[in-house]
Structures are given as C-alpha cells and as structure tokens.
C-alpha cells in the first residue's frame, strides 16, 4: 500500500468520529466517510503533497454541507437498518452535548468540532472552510456561547448560583 493510502487509512477512525458528531446519525456519518474516501482515492494522483489530514477533513466538511442544503422542506428520512446505539459511559451528558450541537448552524458546528474534538489549529480550520482566521474565531466564539447556553438551559439545576 502506498504511503498516501496509508496516511488516508490512518485517518479513518478520526474521520468517523468527526462525521458522527457532525451528522448525528451513524449510518449517514459512515456514508459521508465512505464518500470522502472514494473521492480522496480518486484524486490520489492529483494530490501533490501537503497535509492529507486537513484535506480529508475539507472533503468531508464540504460533502456534509452539500448534503444539508435545503433540508427544511425535505421529507424525513430514516436509515433502513437499525443503527448501533452509541454506547457511552456518560450517556446522559452525551445526549445533552449532542442535542446542544444539533442547535448550531452548520459552519459553527464544523468549527467547534474541528477545534475542540479533532484538535485542529485555527489556521487549518480557516483553510478547510476557506475563510479568514478571524471568521473561524468568531464562529468558534458564537458556537461555544450557544452550546453553553443550550447546556445550561437544559440543566438548570446544575447552574452555579452566585
């Protein structure tokens, strides 16, 4: 296997994590990863060095953006097969954060996940989204404020009283 393929393969677990958080449905998330990999492999010869990791996140982010266009008037879709329910040790907390993420607009959710979950730098996220760093920072600030409010709104009992 080529070095290129090896570096793509090494990214699959992280891409799946990002896609799951972005799309919230396990089946659709893996569809996104699969489409990302197919595109990446098809462009193997066009890839002239650079950061494979950022490039893969870029493809996935763009695919998800296309997928979500004009969703409001679309019929509800469900995966044909039962998905594996996400097993997690902190189930209650996990549902809260997933619900809070769901309230974010697309580009804010992507910034928040790329920075906080995937550990990318502001510069990398700016390149992925094709925007200036200042835009990444304002999206991140808005996303954090929004998620914080959503989490606190859901669990008023845990709010610290000063």
């Amino acid at each position, binding site marked *: *296997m080529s070095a290129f*393929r090896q570096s793509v*393969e090494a990214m*699959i*677990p992280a891409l*799946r*994590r990002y896609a*799951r*958080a972005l*799309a919230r*449905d396990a*089946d*659709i*998330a*893996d*569809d996104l*990863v*699969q*489409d990302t*990999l*197919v*595109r990446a*492999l098809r462009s193997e010869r066009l890839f002239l060095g650079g950061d494979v990791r950022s490039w893969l996140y870029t493809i996935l982010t763009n695919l998800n953006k*296309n*997928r*979500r266009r*004009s*969703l409001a008037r*679309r*019929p*509800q*879709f*469900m*995966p*044909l*097969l*039962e*998905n594996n329910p*996400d*097993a*997690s*040790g*902190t189930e209650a*907390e*996990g549902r*809260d*954060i*997933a619900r809070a993420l769901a309230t974010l607009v697309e580009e804010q959710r992507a910034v928040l*996940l790329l920075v*906080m*979950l995937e550990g990318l*730098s*502001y510069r990398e996220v700016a390149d992925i989204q094709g925007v200036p760093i200042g835009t990444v*920072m304002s999206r*991140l*600030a808005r996303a*954090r404020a929004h*998620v*914080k409010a959503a989490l606190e709104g859901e669990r008023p009992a845990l709010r*610290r009283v000063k």
Partner: protein
Amino acid sequence: MTDPKIPVTEDELHAYVDNELPAERRGDVETWLAAHPDDAERVQSWRTMAEALHARYDHVANEPVPKRLDLERLVQPSRRWVYGTIAATLLAFIAGGGTGWLAHGAAATPSTFQSFTEDALDAHRLYVVEVRHPVEVPGNERAHLQAWLTKRCGWDVFAPELSSTGLKLVGGRLLPGPTGPASFLMYESASGERFTVYTAKASTETTQMRYTTQDKNGAKEGALFWTERGVGYVVSGTTNRERLSQVARLVYDQTEKKGG
C-alpha cells in the same frame, strides 16, 4: 512582548483554551482569570464542553472500522460485494419487523438522496392517480419505450419484468430530474395497485439502500432508493415494506444483471 496591563480579549480567552496563544501572553491571561471569576468560569465551561465532546464521540474512533470503509474495497468495488450489501439490507428490511427502526425517524438527518427521492415521490403522486394519461409511451411498446428513454437520458434505461409480483408495465415517461432528464416507469397490478420506478443521474457514491415514507394530503407512500453506476433508482409505492422490497429486489436484480 505584550503588556500585562492590556486587558485580555474574548479572542485571547479562546486562544488560551485552544493553545493558540503566544507563550509569553499565557501568564497574563492566567493573572487576568484569577482576578475575573466570570471569565474564569467561562473558560472552565469550555474545557468541560471539550471533555463532554470527547466523552460522547471518542468511542467512535475506537470502534473497529466497518468493512465498507476498507480502502482496498473502495479502490476496486466488487460487484458481488455491492450486491451483497443491498441484498442484505433488503433482507434485514423485511425481517426487521417493528423492532424500533421507525423510531429513528425523529432523530434522522437528511442526505443527498433526499431531493432525489422527493422528486420521485412527487412524480409518483402526480401520475399514479391519473387514469387516462398516466404515461407517454404505453407498456405494450416496451422496446420503443426503453430505446427512447435510453437515448434521452443517456444511460441504459431498462423496464424490468415484474410480472412475478403481479405487476404489469403500464408505460413510462420522460421527466425533468434533479440534474437533467429522469425516466419514470409505471407498473400496475390487477387490483389497481401502482408502483413507479424512477431513475436519474445521482452524484452520490453510496450503494446503501434507503427507505422513506411521505405523508401528503392523506396519502402515504413508501420509497426505496439506491444508486448503481452513477444512476439513482427510486422504487415508490406502498408503505407495506415487505411488498415494496419484493418489488425493489426484482428491479435491482434485473438492472444489476443487465449492466454488470
């Protein structure tokens, strides 16, 4: 060098948490946080948020990678494997019964195939109620119908034989699809039950079959969607999934044999 007396900005608080702050400014921010409990509380909440994200999603990265994401398979997709995926999906679809798969509807997110299937269902709804002119070319001119649609659409349009499920070809028509022409075939049973098979160019690479139902004006339809060599297929008809997948399976089997 930065002046410790310069107030710390909102951007700097974020950069501090994300390790994007120049090292020489970190001390200033820490001093600031000690004196500003509101900002310290916010910074702490962002760290808790990051922990919650990892607690919620890290397990996905630790799962074994599903077979369908195997790079070797994606490079040279084996027809047999693709076929196996769809056949297995259909089987599970029929056997699944009421074990909660519908409950996913509420949490489900839309996908690229949505506009596609919606177009197909709109056409289905529009023409199945049509008694006198449901099609442009009648089913008894099957060869002409196939040749005409193939020529206009640009891919091999094939009208499958569905008589083993009691369905007879009523005929077909050409429709505007999402990115160009679409072919539309209608079938009917002796009891008047109608199914339609819609095809159009599809950009998605996904081979997985998807199911949806649509409820409009009191009429409820079910549809199965899949893609095959860049062409998307939507079989629309009843919400009885056993019946629907029986028909879809026949359509899939025949188009697979035809093109593979």
